[in-house]
């Protein structure tokens, strides 16, 4: 061996394989991911920043009436003043800072729970107050007489009012012809209208809020629907065709209570499939293994886990970039730009991500072209592009929100600085090298990002990168070996082909 330090990667492989073998054979950790849709970890954190004194916060938490089984539950608080009470089977967490005069620490309290089979099982409380919504002010086009007539028709046809109305409200044409509302309204607003109408028709109805279980979320992406109850029958009325086909959502809260507590309070929800539970289910004693305690990231709070689940995918992206550059010889914009773009694709999905990226680049190039006429110095010019990109993302988020395009408004992870730099580099490259090589580089970047995204979103890859994060030692070893590869790149076979053929 020419270079004695090349023993390092092999040592790294040995260490990682040793750790993996220990975890698998001794600690019985599963190498394949267990289907995790039945176990979920939910967290609610309330920030105390700017919280007025004498504040009381009430939060409905999963109760004994829930079909969901509570496996673990935990609270933490920085100010003593939390209690949980149960009334009519509904459990409520109450926190108060009454009587606390000193400044309140950053976090008021944190509540976390691990639920199994947590679907739409929580009962609606019987004593819901009327929603204080001024329908006329909120929906100026609303014509109650049209809806009354429509409800009469439904009743005459002996159909279920709640379900029929839900189906109608999901379609804008039907909504318009039976309520007079012409403007496109969000699902949340549709839900508010429907709850009010149902209550006027002697239903117990409330707005429910939940999550797509297959998409771990942090802070955003609630979906709204209506839970209605009449004559001891409960109906889930979905106002979005995408989730009406029995897709499970975790039931969490009612709008009435939410309104009381969330407006003045900074409250974060996070929710994750809790692999920890499934991961270790067969060998519960492993939970007490000191070694496991030391290296497992599953004990971290869900909101922190979300960050690490994303962060720990980056090394694999870096490996793919190194492989495509050094072994294949693909040229793309920036070294790790493709990885960052792939991360944003992970967040919003490939189709939406690609569309957003291309829209942003084309719009940015036009903006950059207009700016070049102003002959600005480059720092100022790139900063203007950056602001343009940020504002474009905000506009896209707003438009998506208005049209209920969930993926669009969560595009905040889009790497704005990276996109600004791509725009700047492309614009210069078009001028210096022409459109053809620029487009080629962009296509390479997009293909690489898409491949990295597809690999990163594979279940087993996500499982291994987080649960067996010692695997990154192997990746580091592989990178060291790739870094010493002095053979030909695949692209060079084509580049020098004519030379050797002659």
């Amino acid at each position: 061996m020419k270079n004695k330090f090349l023993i390092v990667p092999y040592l790294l492989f040995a260490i990682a394989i040793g750790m993996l073998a220990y975890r698998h054979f001794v600690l019985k950790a599963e190498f394949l991911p267990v289907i995790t849709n039945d176990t979920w970890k939910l967290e609610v954190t309330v920030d105390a920043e700017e919280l007025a004194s004498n504040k009381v916060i009430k939060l409905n938490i999963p109760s004994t009436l829930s079909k969901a089984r509570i496996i673990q539950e935990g609270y933490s608080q920085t100010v003593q003043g939390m209690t949980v009470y149960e009334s009519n089977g509904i459990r409520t967490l109450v926190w108060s800072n009454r009587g606390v005069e000193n400044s309140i620490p950053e976090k008021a309290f944190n509540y976390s729970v691990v639920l199994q089979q947590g679907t739409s099982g929580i009962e609606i409380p019987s004593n819901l107050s009327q929603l204080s919504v001024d329908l006329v002010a909120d929906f100026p086009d609303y014509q109650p007489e049209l809806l009354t007539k429509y409800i009469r028709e439904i009743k005459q046809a002996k159909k279920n009012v709640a379900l029929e109305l839900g189906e109608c409200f999901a379609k804008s044409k039907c909504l318009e012809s039976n309520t007079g509302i012409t403007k496109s309204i969000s699902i949340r607003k549709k839900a508010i209208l429907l709850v009010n109408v149902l209550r006027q028709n002697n239903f117990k109805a409330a707005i429910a809020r939940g999550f797509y279980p297959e998409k771990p979320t942090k802070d955003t992406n609630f979906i709204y629907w209506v839970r209605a109850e009449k004559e001891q029958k409960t109906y889930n009325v979905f106002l979005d065709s995408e989730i009406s086909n029995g897709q499970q959502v975790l039931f969490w809260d009612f709008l009435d209570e939410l309104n009381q507590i969330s407006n003045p309070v900074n409250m974060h929800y996070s929710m994750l499939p809790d692999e920890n539970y499934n991961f270790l289910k067969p060998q519960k004693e492993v939970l007490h293994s000191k070694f496991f305690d030391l290296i497992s990231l599953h004990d971290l709070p869900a909101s922190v886990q979300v960050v690490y689940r994303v962060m720990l995918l980056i090394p694999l992206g870096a490996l793919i970039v190194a492989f495509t550059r050094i072994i294949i010889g693909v040229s793309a914009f920036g070294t790790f730009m493709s990885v960052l773009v792939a991360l944003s694709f992970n967040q919003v999905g490939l189709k939406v991500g690609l569309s957003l990226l291309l829209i942003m680049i084309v719009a940015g190039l036009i903006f950059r072209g207009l700016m070049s006429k102003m002959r600005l110095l480059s720092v100022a010019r790139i900063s203007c592009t950056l602001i343009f990109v940020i504002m474009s993302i905000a506009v896209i988020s707003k438009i998506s929100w208005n049209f209920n395009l969930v993926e669009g408004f969560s595009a905040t992870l889009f790497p704005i600085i990276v996109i600004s730099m791509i725009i700047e580099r492309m614009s210069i490259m078009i001028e210096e090298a022409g459109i053809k090589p620029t487009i080629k580089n962009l296509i390479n970047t997009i293909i690489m990002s898409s491949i990295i995204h597809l690999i990163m979103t594979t279940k087993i890859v996500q499982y291994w990168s987080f649960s067996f994060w010692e695997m990154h030692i192997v990746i580091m070893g592989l990178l060291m070996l790739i870094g010493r590869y002095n053979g030909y790149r695949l692209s060079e076979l084509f580049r020098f082909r004519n030379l050797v053929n002659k």
Partner: protein
Amino acid sequence: MFFLNTLKQLREAGILGINRRNIDFIQKYNRRKYFPNVDSKLKSKLLAQQVGIPVPELYYVIESYFQIKNIHEVLSKYASFVIKPEHGSGGKGIIVLNQKDGKFFKLSGEEVGLEKIKEHLGNTLSGLYSLGGQPDRAFVEYKVDFDPQHSNLSFQGTPDLRIIILKGQPVMSMMRLPTQQSGNKANLHQGAVGVGIDLETGMTTFAIQGSSLIEYHPDTKAKLSGIKINEWEKIITYAEKCYEVFKLGYMGVDLVLDEKLGPLLLEANARPGLSIQIANQCGMLKRIKDLNLTY
């Protein structure tokens, strides 16, 4: 099979690939602390002059935005000049201008406004053309008038000579000829023509554009092989001398042949490209072996 066959053929032909160049040549022979010797064109100029290698005369250095304001006074003194970024690469950010009655013109005859020049200088200072995008300096220097004997070898721009030096020994050389496609720049990636030169005789051998062999200049239609480069021995001597001054074991030395001043060192490159092998129709590793050099 194509891959295996081609791989075998490339190995047999002694073609140097990028990975091997980076690991076995650049990392092995070029110590990082000497990179500034060539990455800074101003420093290269200074070092070269110290050992008697002629370089284009330096007219003016622009270090701050304030200097740009009165640049007209400086530029009006010269009938022709070149503006370069100190840390530029691949010919980026270089503009060649002629001056007449206080107005500036590109080699193509197109007028360039003073505002455009100021903007270009501002961009250069802010690092638009520099390696790694760091803030940079710009400088104005003597514009080389290419040896008229070879005037039909180039379309408007100035051809340059690239010589690869391994541990002080010339290994391979070529001439790079600007074309209309390359935008008058001697940059092979942008469509300039590369012409291989026999190290012993200074005679041109093969010519390429992209990766295709050509016989005639695409614009001037001049025959490209069998041309004797003037003052070849001097050129080789200067290139060899660069090793002792820049202290890089593997580098590309770029020179030009001026009508009045003869060979002038333009710059040296610590990461020279590999297309020179196609222009010479010969692998670098094979050439090194033929010259009885070790690496």
